[in-house]
């Protein structure tokens, strides 16, 4: 019986691992051929023509994700410090629970939220609205990672610092946070990677655009949005560009994830 079941389970492992290789394989086969310097430096050409690049989408993703991180990361880290420093307080319990709820909220719902708050108020789509949605998604992720990593810092370190007469804020910033910082940085990278691939909350906030733009108050392109538009569009050339853009996206996301996992495992002997 054991032997049969092990056989069944090994089959399950193969079936489970297969999609990753199939997906990566297709991305490389279909996406790598159109990667060139001009792919990164050009903006789109009119539909139907050959050539064209994704510069506008790369710039857009950097700006939108960058602005989201600017808000989401510090807020998330500070909230994470709070829930570890004041572990037993009622606010900490509530915040932890709410963060889990927000973590489980579909990103499209967060997109609707950003739409009602930013787009409706401003009266038009904008990159800012997209960033707002991504920041909301980012906050609970960063908070929970920060909390987990701060909890790994030995309590003796904190006690030693307090015994030396360090004030609480210096203890938690220069001793506890500093000890956990490498782990937190990788956790933040992981959430940036996840956010960078989000499409749904950008659909009706940042909207997408065919032009290179630095104006965050206007609609803006982003890599995942571009993959979506081009994949569902009617032109062969668009499909080709969608594959290449997806390859770029996946390389960024996977490299960040692998680095984050390897580094945290080396430092803390476990995954986060």
């Amino acid at each position, binding site marked *: *019986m*054991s032997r049969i079941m*092990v056989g069944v*389970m*090994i089959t*399950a492992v193969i*079936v*489970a*691992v297969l*999609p*990753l290789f*199939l*997906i990566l394989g297709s991305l490389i086969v279909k996406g790598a051929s159109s990667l060139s310097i001009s792919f990164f430096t050009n903006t789109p050409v009119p539909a139907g023509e050959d050539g064209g690049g994704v510069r506008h989408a790369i710039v857009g993703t950097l700006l939108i994700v960058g602005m989201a991180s600017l808000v989401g990361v510090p*807020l998330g880290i*500070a*909230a994470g*410090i*709070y829930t570890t420093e*004041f572990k037993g307080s009622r*606010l*900490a319990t509530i915040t932890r*629970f709410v963060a889990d*709820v927000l973590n489980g*909220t*579909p*990103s*499209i*719902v967060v*997109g*609707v*939220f950003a739409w*009602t708050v930013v787009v409706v108020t401003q*009266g038009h789509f904008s990159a800012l609205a997209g960033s707002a949605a991504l920041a*909301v998604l980012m*906050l*609970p992720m960063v*908070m929970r990672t920060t909390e987990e990593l701060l909890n790994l810092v030995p309590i003796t370190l904190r006690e030693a610092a307090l015994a030396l007469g*360090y*004030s*609480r*804020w210096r203890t938690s*910033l*220069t001793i506890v946070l*500093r000890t956990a910082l490498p782990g937190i940085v990788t956790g933040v990278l992981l959430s940036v990677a*996840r956010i960078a*691939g*989000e499409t*749904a909350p950008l*659909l*009706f906030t940042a*909207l997408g655009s065919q032009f290179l733009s630095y104006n965050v108050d206007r609609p803006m392109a982003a890599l995942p949005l571009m*993959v*979506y538009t081009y*994949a*569902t569009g009617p032109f062969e050339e668009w499909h080709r560009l969608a*594959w290449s853009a*997806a390859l770029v*996206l996946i390389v960024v996301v996977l490299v960040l*994830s*692998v680095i984050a996992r390897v580094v945290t495992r080396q430092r803390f002997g476990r995954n986060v």
Partner: protein
Amino acid sequence: MPTTPPPDDVATSDASLALSAWGDRIFKGLLVASALAAPALLVALLWQLLSGAAPAIGAFGFSFITDSIWDPVAEKFGALPLVFGTLLTSFLALLLAVPLSLGVAIYLTEFAPERIRQPIAMVIELLAAIPSVVYGLWGIFVMIPILQSSVYPFLEANFGWLPIFQGPIYGPSVLSASLILTIMVMPFIMSVAREVLLAVPAGQREAATALGATRWEAVTTAIVPYAKSGIVGAIILGLGRALGETMAVTMLIGNRHDIAASLFAPGYSMAAVIANEFAEAGLGTLHASALTYVALILFAVTVLVNAAARLMIWRMNRGAGK
């Protein structure tokens, strides 16, 4: 901020004690403000969804989820096909993903050679890092052609007597969307189930083996029953993911407001309709309000599902999971 402060930097005098007390107060204030951000966002989220959906709630009430006509021009909205599509695709995805991911999780915690446990777990967890839109792209151009040319005709030829495998074969369909969802939720269920199984005390395992159980018997009699509520939690967590999954489903489900018996037929899902129609629904229209109503329902369902999952996992971690 110096990292190794000189001794005289430490609060000893009255003045510096007072200063550090002020520092602590400001520090705490900042932290409290940040900790309040998440609850404030949740309240704002709920409020915005409610007030955005209010016109549609007023116009349709609860019949919104039992009507199946969706006509933005006539301003008649019924979400039944959407709710049905979301539930059906999530159910099918779980049906396939649960045995698969539990098999992998049990193998990795109980049977696999030590060396390959981490690498396999990592490869599967990387699947969770792939953006949804990339799954959609791959689904459209790689998975669907394969399914359409071989798997679907096979199903129709051999299981065509089942109403779910009858009728014309469409590429983008409920079944295609369910299959891509299977791949997407599998890593989530696997990684939570694995953590849960790892948390089972070694004593359970040893006691079963000491009583003469084989390794597989130990799994079925001592380990899985102990971890039951945690495993159920993992499955419900996967359900939460499947319900809210947007891009890949939007790209593969066919986007037709219809309920068909056949899984080969196109359908629609709650998340997909928001993704497709929201940008076009004008500000302040009933259409936008109806879509917000859909978002509100989706939000409420996922909150309930996730709360249930957390509760199960929490019970298991307290050792009460029986």
